[in-house]
């Protein structure tokens, strides 16, 4: 078995805090007008000693050490709200915050236990849950149609479906897997998966400040991609999509990348005749931060939902660019205990309360973190009888039942 830590790519990060202000993107920080919109829009801004505005101010004043020894940035769930709303267009979540967070992470006296476990597991097993790497495609045994695994059948394929961790292992993620396989087949898409050769794309490790882990995973995944012939990647992971679109190209990825939701939205005309079953749901859609604010895909999931017979789409107070993060990004997935110890509200709870207030009975999502996070909140808040959480693709597959497709 290959070592998990080849001494390869990424030993020389191009941008560091030390050289940040000399770089073109870093020089942009000099144009910050200290308006504080970033701090105000940050879902945990009120809990940070140093919200983004102050971090920029302190950085410019040379007060780096104070920033780096504070745990402020552990509260950053990389929801891209500050970046989306910055009137100067500063690339906060893309550039500044990860660089600062990497240094904060390296200086932490102790990494919060759940986050440490998730990172250790991701390095060793390729998934944060610590599940067997060999069982990454175990869900496929219960999928109809059969799913091709490239290691067993390495013929060239159109779509390399990068399933991602929570989709592959979480029981509700596996529902999404089976639904996705069904929709792919109904559309006649030629697809295959990497199975146990797939490892986490690493985006949340990167944004938690564990850059070396991200580089190790990216290095591994790129080598694995290189073994097979495919035309494009379609991934179920919103964060994996983010990584493949924005980070992997600089490391050598040259294939087009799509997320399942916009991929299916792009084939809406082909899909519509297949959506024959009337569902009778009132649905509210939660914009994932990665798809929505970071990549501007607000309408694609909504177009899919509107095409499903018997779906009434209603909006939460905060939607599209204003959507409230589920709290799972940037390592937040494994910081619930850390936040709770500080007396902070779980962001997923805040979001589910908004969803329930719409009167919807289905909360639709498109990021694999959200099903588990929102289902936990629905249970904890006692809304189990009022609301269920479903991936958009699950709803598509359900609307195809009885339509003559297998």
């Amino acid at each position: 078995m290959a070592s998990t830590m080849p001494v390869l790519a990424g030993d020389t990060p191009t941008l560091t805090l030390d050289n940040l202000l000399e770089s073109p993107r870093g020089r942009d920080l000099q144009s910050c007008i200290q308006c504080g919109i970033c701090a105000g829009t940050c879902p945990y801004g009120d809990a940070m000693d140093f919200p983004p505005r102050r971090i920029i101010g302190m950085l410019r004043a040379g007060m780096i050490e104070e920033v780096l020894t504070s745990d402020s940035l552990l509260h950053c769930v990389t929801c891209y709200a500050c970046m989306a709303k910055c009137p100067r267009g500063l690339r906060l979540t893309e550039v500044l915050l990860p660089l600062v967070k990497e240094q904060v992470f390296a200086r932490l006296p102790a990494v919060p236990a759940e986050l440490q476990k998730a990172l250790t597991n991701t390095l060793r097993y390729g998934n944060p849950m610590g599940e067997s790497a060999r069982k990454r495609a175990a869900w496929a045994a219960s999928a109809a149609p059969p799913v091709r695994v490239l290691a067993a059948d390495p013929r060239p394929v159109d779509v390399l479906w990068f399933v991602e961790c929570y989709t592959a292992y979480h029981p509700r993620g596996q529902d999404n897997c089976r639904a996705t396989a069904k929709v792919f087949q109904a559309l006649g898409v030629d697809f295959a998966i990497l199975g146990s050769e797939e490892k986490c794309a690493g985006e949340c490790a990167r944004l938690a400040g564990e850059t070396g882990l991200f580089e190790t995973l990216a290095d591994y995944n790129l080598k694995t991609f290189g073994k097979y012939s495919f035309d494009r990647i379609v991934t179920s992971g919103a964060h994996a999509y983010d990584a493949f679109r924005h980070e992997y190209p600089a490391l050598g990825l040259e294939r087009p990348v799509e997320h399942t939701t916009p991929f299916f939205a792009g084939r809406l005309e082909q899909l519509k005749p297949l959506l024959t079953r009337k569902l009778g749901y009132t649905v509210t859609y939660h914009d994932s931060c990665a798809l929505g604010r970071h990549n501007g895909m607000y309408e694609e999931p909504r177009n899919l939902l509107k095409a499903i017979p018997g779906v009434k789409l209603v909006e939460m107070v905060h939607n599209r660019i204003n959507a409230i993060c589920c709290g799972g990004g940037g390592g937040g997935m494994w910081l619930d205990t850390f936040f709770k110890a500080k007396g902070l509200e779980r962001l997923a709870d805040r979001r589910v309360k908004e969803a329930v207030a719409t009167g919807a009975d289905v909360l639709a999502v498109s990021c694999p973190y959200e099903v588990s996070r929102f289902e936990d909140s629905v249970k904890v808040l006692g809304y189990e009888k009022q609301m269920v959480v479903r991936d958009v693709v699950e709803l598509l597959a359900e609307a195809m039942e009885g339509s003559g497709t297998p």
Partner: protein
Amino acid sequence: MNILVLLKMVPDIVEELEIGSDGTSLDLDAVRPIVSERDDHALEQALLLKERCGGSVTVLAIESRDVDEVLFTALAKGCDRALKVSGAGAALTSAKAAALLARTLPGIPNLMPVDLVLTGCQAIDDLDGVVAPSLAERLHLPYLGIVTAVDVPAGALKATVLKEFAAGVRGQYGVCLPAVLGVQAAEKPPRYVPVAKVRAAMKARTIEEVPAGAMDEASLLSVAAMTKPEAVGRAEMLEGDPEAVAAKVVEILSARGLV
């Protein structure tokens, strides 16, 4: 305070264990080795002691698959020296490993004597916890096991050691140095080391290879057979919707006087 930490690799039971074709050993190709959890705690305890008392920490492991990564990780965490015993042959029993270590340690340049030898009090393939006490016996050093905290007050020739007993009872011991301690759990969970630091250690640090001492022990034990647990079918599976299952659980528990 110079501390020697002994690390070893054990099968990672995240994957199913398979019996080898000889019927008396594990199929080691079917599992991936991982550092023994309690050895990892011994390492953490050593690093905590170094932070409190100064001195050095040396890690040593007998050569095995993937052990380099573990030794480099230990260096990245703050160990001063990493040693790998080579030429020991495959699949040593715990008693043989202890004998091998006892023969090898004295010949390693600039190592012995150390003030403390720390290792796990048990491992999943050494539930009797044989390695540390056997090694202590052969080195003529005192041994304490099931240790959960260690302190060495400044200038003291004794270590203060917390040892755990059943029912939450703990005993505090003074033990003359040098000594061998079998660690159950460090005072804090083992620390995280960023991957970048491990990579830096792989580039900048080295693992010293030391030859295994001569082995002339005849083993008095041998494995007769190894089998997987057999399913006997005595479990009762409760089926039905959650309400029906819950009612059945309540019925069973109350029938046995448990609720």
